């Protein structure tokens, strides 16, 4: 999967079209909003969405792992969609391929399973995390009022609307780097996008199929 290198606030990050950030210096892969178990949750309720979405999502995560070889993955919330179901069991087996990789979950509003389940999946749960001067939280709205660190967050599944001459328009998922807060695109294929209002100074990278483009 293609990526672009983004030098920002003294860090060098790779923004991947696979909807993740790789932080080489820390050997850290960052993703948001995996929503594992969403399709199973729908299917359990009698709504026949395709069952293979979780396989496809985790296959993409696996490709990112083999591409970057991270030691640690931070999920900025909504790793699981709802209560435990068989997609979660599928994840358990998938997880066993990478016992050496640390999974740190910054709990999101969808992460409602019992703590013991996360432990059994070898996932460490946190309300927030800090790595160097970067503060990880699911919903940036919840960040402490007095915070000097820059925030990396998820939650809103950001997208932008692009317009051009001749009344052209497009809507694409994006990485968004604002003044104090960055927002990652949602990882799962079973998510929509929420159109963001852009701050003047913000840096925005859209995901256009297999490419990441700065706009």
């Amino acid at each position, binding site marked *: 999967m293609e990526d672009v290198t983004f030098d920002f606030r003294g860090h060098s990050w790779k923004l991947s079209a696979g909807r993740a950030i790789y932080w080489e210096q820390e050997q850290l892969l960052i993703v948001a909003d995996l929503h594992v178990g969403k399709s199973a949750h729908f*299917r359990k309720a009698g*709504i026949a969405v395709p*069952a*293979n979405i979780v396989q496809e999502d985790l296959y993409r995560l696996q490709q990112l792992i083999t591409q970057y070889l991270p030691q640690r993955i931070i999920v900025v919330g909504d790793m699981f969609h709802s209560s435990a179901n*068989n997609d979660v069991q599928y994840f358990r087996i998938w997880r066993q391929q990478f016992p050496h990789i640390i999974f740190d979950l910054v709990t999101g509003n969808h992460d409602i399973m019992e703590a013991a389940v996360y432990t059994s999946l070898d996932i460490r749960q946190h309300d927030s995390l800090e790595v160097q001067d970067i503060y990880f939280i699911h919903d940036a709205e919840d960040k402490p009022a007095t915070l000097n660190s820059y925030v990396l967050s998820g939650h809103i599944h950001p997208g932008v609307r692009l317009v*051009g001459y001749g*009344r052209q328009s497009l809507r694409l998922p994006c990485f968004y780097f604002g003044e104090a807060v960055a927002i990652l695109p949602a990882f799962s294929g079973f998510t929509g996008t929420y159109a963001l209002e852009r701050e003047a100074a913000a840096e925005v990278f859209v995901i256009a199929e297999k490419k990441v483009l700065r706009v």
Partner: protein
Amino acid sequence: MKNTPGWQKIEQWLAAKELKPFAFQEEAWEHYLHGRSGLVNAPTGFGKTFSLFLAVLIRWVNEGSPPTSGLQMLWVTPLRALAKDIGRAMEEALHELRIPWKVGIRSGDTATSEREQQKRRMPEILIITPESIHILLAQKEYAKRFEGLHTVVIDEWHELLGSKRGVLVELGLCRLRSLRPQLQTWGISATIGNLDEALDVLMGTATASKAIVRAEVNKAIEVHCILPDEIEKYPWAGHLGIRLLHKVLPVIRNSRTTLLFTNTRGQSEIWYQQILKAYPDMAGVMALHHGSIDAELRIWVEEALHTGALKLVVCTSSLDLGVDFRPVDTVIQVGSPKGVARFLQRAGRSGHQPDAVSHIWFLPTHSLELVEAAALKDAMKANLIESRMPVVLAYDVLLQYLMTLAVSDGFNAEETWAEVRSTFCFQSLEPEEWQWILAFMTTGGEALNSYDEFRKLHLVGDRYYCTSRQLAMRHRLHIGTIVSDAMLKVRYMTGGFIGLIEEYFISRLSPGDSFSLSGNNLEFVMIKDMTVLVRKSKSKKSIVPSWNGGRMPLSANLGMMLRRKFHEAMNGIAQEEEITILRPLFDLQQLLSHIPQENELLMEHIETKDGYHLFVYPFEGRLVHEVMAALLAWRISRQHSISFSIAMNDYGFELLSDQPIPVDDTNAQELLSPENLAADLQSSVNATEMARRKFRDIAVIAGLIFQGYPGKHKANRHLQSSASLLFNVFHDYDPQNLLLRQAFNEAFFYQMEEARLRDTLERIAGQKIVITFPQRLTPFCFPIKVDSLREQLTSEKLEDRIKKMIVW
């Protein structure tokens, strides 16, 4: 038959009121008493109800007035509002005839206590909506209720026929026929182009003997046109027509009661406000009526129409159907009605007495629409009434129906397959499709594997059941095929319900903004518990909600007539007042560009600050233009890397690009050639986007979108998803999905009229293409250019397009 006791009794009863049955009523009675099924073709206001209701009474008297045990006749009506009036008329007749039958109403509005009562003892006659039939079928031991049923009448069948509600009727009938093999089915329909087919759809493959009864009543209709005083000052584009307000008032003053029809709810709100502003004395004698207004208020308006208390009602298609409002003697149509049948129906809302003349005034909302007025008149003279195309293979409705059976008494796959295949809609359903549908409901479409937790239906013995109470309850609340946008209730802060409004509209407002609903100026305060709280606004300016659904395409019949009129107008042959008044406009068109002759196709290249425009005028109607524009854009984009946005109306279409559009007299003919049409169409039309729009309704009807329980919106938020997201997911992960295929079929069926397009292109192949380069916008192009709803087509790489864009 005439000397049977029942017939005599009815005749005497009518004679006592100094009435005589109409010939078509007697004809219908004859057929009915011979055990036939069929279709009665009669307009409203001519005793169509009695043509079948009285027949059932005659039969009962002829049988010696046996004691009845519950339901004898189902009377299906498309509109809840109609049920009450029909019921009232029936009860009156039963009372005078001293027949001890009860009439019940069953619709979404029926109180729970009355439903319970109906459960214990069904009335002899039940007036019901198509949805409520299915709600009855979703109850345990439903078969018991229909034990005495022998007749089903579908009122206003022409309204249901072309929609998925018609499919609900077909499926309901196939179940009832299985329960009651002797069932007689009758439809009542206004005149449409395909009455024979309408009867076939009603009967499916049932072999009962059947008849069509036509009421030979010729209704006199007079069409008038409201003309602007100075055509030079009348707008070239627009959809409101408010400028002609001062000419509307005399029409209203000289009439007893007037209905003013607009095409959208938004337009009706604006008209209501503007009339009130210009003529404050109308307050109290005028009202507003449309689908988003509180039902109680609507009922009040309808009652007031009956009693003649209102001078004017501004309305939308919400008043297209229904019982006669006798005081109404004038109808005003604002803007194009888009079809002959609809125009006739609306005209028929006035002058309801059999020999009265219906008066309808056509009010053009922009100059060129005057040509349409002339076209309508001619189409009416030629009796060019549109057909209603029945819906076929609506898999979404079938899925819903099977779930309905599964939550009550279950279904046997073989039995139900035979029943379903007996309907017109599903007569060509393939066994593989049936298997897919069963799998979709049992295993969720996947091969069974131990991981999958999908559950909906279970096989118990040889019947499929839904055993989950929760799923069953959810299903019962979602029966029906009318899908509206998520609607929010609007209330005053101090209490008091005003109406409903689309979530999409409210989401764009900020607190403090003013908008208009039900004729009130309201200030948006906040959203709380799925309710929009507002207070009265003092602001002079307010936003009018734009409800969807205002963009109906012109019917093929009217389109043909329109093209003919345009040619007459452009060549100065037409003598009608509506057209001679347009002369200055046509002169200006000729001055700036050109007026195409019968054997010419006009194209205009114009450059504005928006970019480079190419306008083309085939005069073929919106549907053909939509596809033709995409085709032309695609053929150009194959030779050059270029992106377009596309707009169209009923006269022509526009391609807009950020670079000059390479069409000139060397390649124009070739770009519009009928060669390779089929293949080029497949690749050119953005079928995916069209299908995505169709998928919304399909997903809701098939039960894939969970809308939440009334009043309990917060629960189950983990099951929320949008139709667009589901469409993406099926498209990417399950492309064989039948519902996805249905979405593509619907998009192609409704939007791609390949045959019409081919005719058009063949005609163009024999024409001279005239290309002009006007220095400014012309009268022809202006209405297209201002249209903001646009499609896109591109041959540039996504990456290249993004590089030229900015974040909005």
